[in-house]
C-alpha cells in the first residue's frame, strides 16, 4: 500500500482559553485525520469543542483562545503557530470555511458578484472579466437559478438556502483542498437542509476537496460523511467509518447518541435518553469526562482518563471498556 500523508492531520491538539477564573481547556489532546477527498464528520453536543477544532485549523480562534499544544499539519506542513500573513494566504486558497448563519455571513452592502470577484481575485491572478465569468460558473455550480441576471443582486434579495449556496461558492472560489463546514445547515429549514448538504457534497467531490463537517446532527453525518469523530467535553470519544460507528457504536456516549435518533424502521417504544448533561469546562470530572452519565462506568473510569485505543480497523475509541484491545491508536494507513 502506498503510504500517503493525510491531507489534514491534527495531533494531540490542545486549545486553552485563559480567563480570570483560570484557564479553560476547550480541546484536550485531540487527534484527527482527514484524507484526500474524504468527508470527516465531527459530531457532539453544543460546547463539545467541535467548532473550536475547526477554528483552530484556520487560525481564527475567538479571543482569548490559543493553541497550547499539539500540531496541525496540512499536507505534511505545520500550520499552527504560523504568522498571520502566512495564515491569511492559506485561508481561502488551501482551506476554506463555511459558517452557520447564511443570513449574516454575507456583507449586506456588496452585491454577491462583487464579493465573489473579490475573493477570486485575491487568490487567483485574473482580470476582472475573467474573474466575473468564473464567479458566474461557480454560481451555476451551486445551483443559483438565473445566475447571470441575479449575480449583481444583494444578499437580502436571496432566500436562506440560496445564500448558503452562495456561501459555499465563496468558500470554494479559490479551489481549496479542505473545507471546514461549521454547522452549515443548522440555521436552515429542514426541507432545505438536505439540498444544501447535497450541494456541498457534490461540489467538494467535483473540486476534489475534503470536508470537515462539523455538526450536532447525526442525520447529516449519516447522510454526508465517510468517517466520523465523536467529541465530548473537548475530548475525542470515538472515531471511525460512519457505517461502523453508527451500527456498532463502541463508546457508551456514542451508543446513547445513536439511540436517541428516532428511526422510522426501528421498533422502539421510547427514545434512549442520556441522563444528565455534558459538564461545563470548569467542572470537568476527574478521569473519563463521561463517567457521571455512563451506564457502564467502572471505578477505573472515575480515576484515570482513558487513552484512545483501537477497537477495530480504522475504528478508535477512548473508553476503559476497551483496554483489552491493547495497542494504542495506530496511524491510519493509506
Amino acid at each position: 500500500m502506498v503510504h500517503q500523508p493525510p491531507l489534514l492531520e491534527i495531533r494531540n491538539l490542545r486549545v486553552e482559553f485563559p480567563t480570570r477564573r483560570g484557564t479553560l481547556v476547550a480541546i484536550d489532546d485531540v487527534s484527527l485525520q482527514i484524507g484526500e477527498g474524504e468527508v470527516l464528520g465531527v459530531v457532539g453536543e453544543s460546547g463539545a469543542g467541535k467548532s473550536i477544532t475547526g477554528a483552530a485549523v484556520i487560525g481564527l480562534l475567538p479571543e482569548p483562545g490559543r493553541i497550547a499544544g499539539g500540531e496541525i499539519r496540512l499536507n505534511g506542513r505545520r500550520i499552527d503557530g504560523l504568522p498571520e500573513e502566512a495564515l491569511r494566504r492559506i485561508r481561502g486558497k488551501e482551506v476554506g470555511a463555511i459558517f452557520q448563519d447564511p443570513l449574516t455571513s454575507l456583507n449586506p452592502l456588496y452585491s454577491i458578484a462583487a464579493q465573489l470577484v473579490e475573493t477570486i481575485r485575491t487568490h487567483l491572478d485574473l482580470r476582472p472579466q475573467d474573474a466575473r465569468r468564473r464567479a458566474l460558473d461557480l454560481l451555476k455550480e451551486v445551483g443559483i437559478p438565473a445566475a447571470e441576471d441575479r449575480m449583481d443582486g444583494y444578499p437580502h434579495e436571496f432566500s436562506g438556502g440560496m445564500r448558503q449556496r452562495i456561501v459555499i461558492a465563496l468558500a470554494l472560489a479559490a479551489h481549496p483542498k479542505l473545507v471546514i463546514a461549521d454547522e452549515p445547515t443548522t440555521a436552515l429549514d429542514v426541507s432545505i437542509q438536505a439540498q444544501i448538504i447535497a450541494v456541498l457534497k457534490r461540489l467538494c467531490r467535483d473540486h476534489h476537496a475534503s470536508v470537515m463537517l462539523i455538526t450536532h446532527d447525526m442525520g447529516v453525518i449519516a447522510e454526508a460523511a465517510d468517517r466520523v469523530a465523536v467529541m465530548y467535553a473537548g475530548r475525542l470519544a470515538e472515531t471511525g467509518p460512519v457505517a461502523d460507528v453508527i451500527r456498532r457504536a463502541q463508546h457508551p456516549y456514542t451508543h446513547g447518541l445513536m439511540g436517541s435518533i428516532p428511526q422510522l424502521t426501528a421498533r422502539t417504544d421510547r427514545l434512549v435518553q442520556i441522563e444528565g448533561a455534558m459538564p461545563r469546562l470548569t467542572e470537568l470530572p476527574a478521569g473519563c469526562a463521561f463517567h457521571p452519565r455512563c451506564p457502564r462506568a467502572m471505578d477505573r473510569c472515575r480515576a484515570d482518563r482513558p487513552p484512545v485505543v483501537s477497537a477495530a480497523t480504522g475504528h478508535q475509541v477512548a473508553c476503559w471498556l476497551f483496554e483489552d484491545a491493547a495497542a494504542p491508536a495506530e496511524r491510519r494507513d493509506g
Partner: protein
Amino acid sequence: MTAFGSAAAHPDPTQGQTLRRRLADSDLWYSFRTSPVALGAAVMALLILTAVVCAPWLTHDPFDLTVVDIMDASKPPAWMADGTWQYPLGSDDQGRSVLATILYGTRLSLIVGVLSVLFAVILGVGLGLVAGFAGGLVDMVIMRLADIQLSFPAILVALLIDGIARVALPHELHERLAVFVLIFAIGISSWVHYARTVRASTMVERQKEYVQAAWLVGTPASSILLRHILPNVLGPVLVLGTLGLAAAIISEATLSFLGVGLPPTQPSLGTLIRIGNEFLFSGQWWMTIFPGIALVLVALSVNLLGDWLRDALNPKLR
C-alpha cells in the same frame, strides 16, 4: 454572534452562593477593581461629594453677607504674590472666597443635575413602560412625540422651556423658582432616551411567558409593570442615567453661563464662570478658571464612571 461556537463562554458557578459572595465575585466588581480609570473616577467623585456635603464645616457660606468683607475683593490665589491663605483660591469682586463659592456652587450644580436626571428618568421610564406595554395608539402617540423632540438638540429644548417660563412667570417669582424651572427644563429635554430604551425592553419582556402568565391570572397591568417588568428593564437605564447626569450637569452649567440658568444670588458653577468671565481680560483669571476646573472634574468623573459602567454591563463585550 460568534461564527465559531462559544465553547469557552464564561461559566457561571453561582448556584448556591450568597448574594454578597456573588456580588463580590461578579464580573462587574472585578471589572471595577481592575480598571484604574473607574477606580480613579470613583475616588474623585467621592472626594467631590464629601467636599460638597461638608461645605458648611469647611468654609463660611459665601453668600452670608455678614461674613463677606468687600475690602478683600479680587485677591489672587494664595501661592501668588499678594495672596493670602485666608482665600486659598483667591477672592472674587465682592470679596467672597472663590473656594467657598466653588463648594456651594458645586453643591447646587449637583443638586440640579441629580434632580433633573431623576425627573427625566421617572418621566421617561414611565412613558416607556406605558408605550411598550400598551402598544397601539398610545405607543404611537408617545413615540411620535419622542421622535419630534429628538430632532431638536436637548439644549435648545431646555432653552425654549426656560424662555417660556421666563415669559410666563413674573420676574421675581421666576428668580425664586429658578432651580425648579431649570430642573424641569433639563428633565423635559432628556426623557426621550430613557423612554425609548425602556419601551424596547418592555416590548421584549411583554412577550415573555411570565408576563403572559400573570396577565392571564388577572394581575392588574400596573402591578405587572411595576413589579415584574420594571426590574428587568432597569439595567440600561442605569448606564444612561449616569451618562445623563454628566450631560445634565453640563447642560445646567451651560444654561447658567448663558445667563438663563441660576441667578447670581444662588450661583451654580456655570453662573460663577459667567461672572468671572467678565474679569478675565483684566487679569483676574482665577475667578473663572477655578470654577471651570471644578466643573470639568465633576463632569469627567461622572462620565468616566458612566463609560466604565456601560462597558462593564455590555453583554457583547464579555
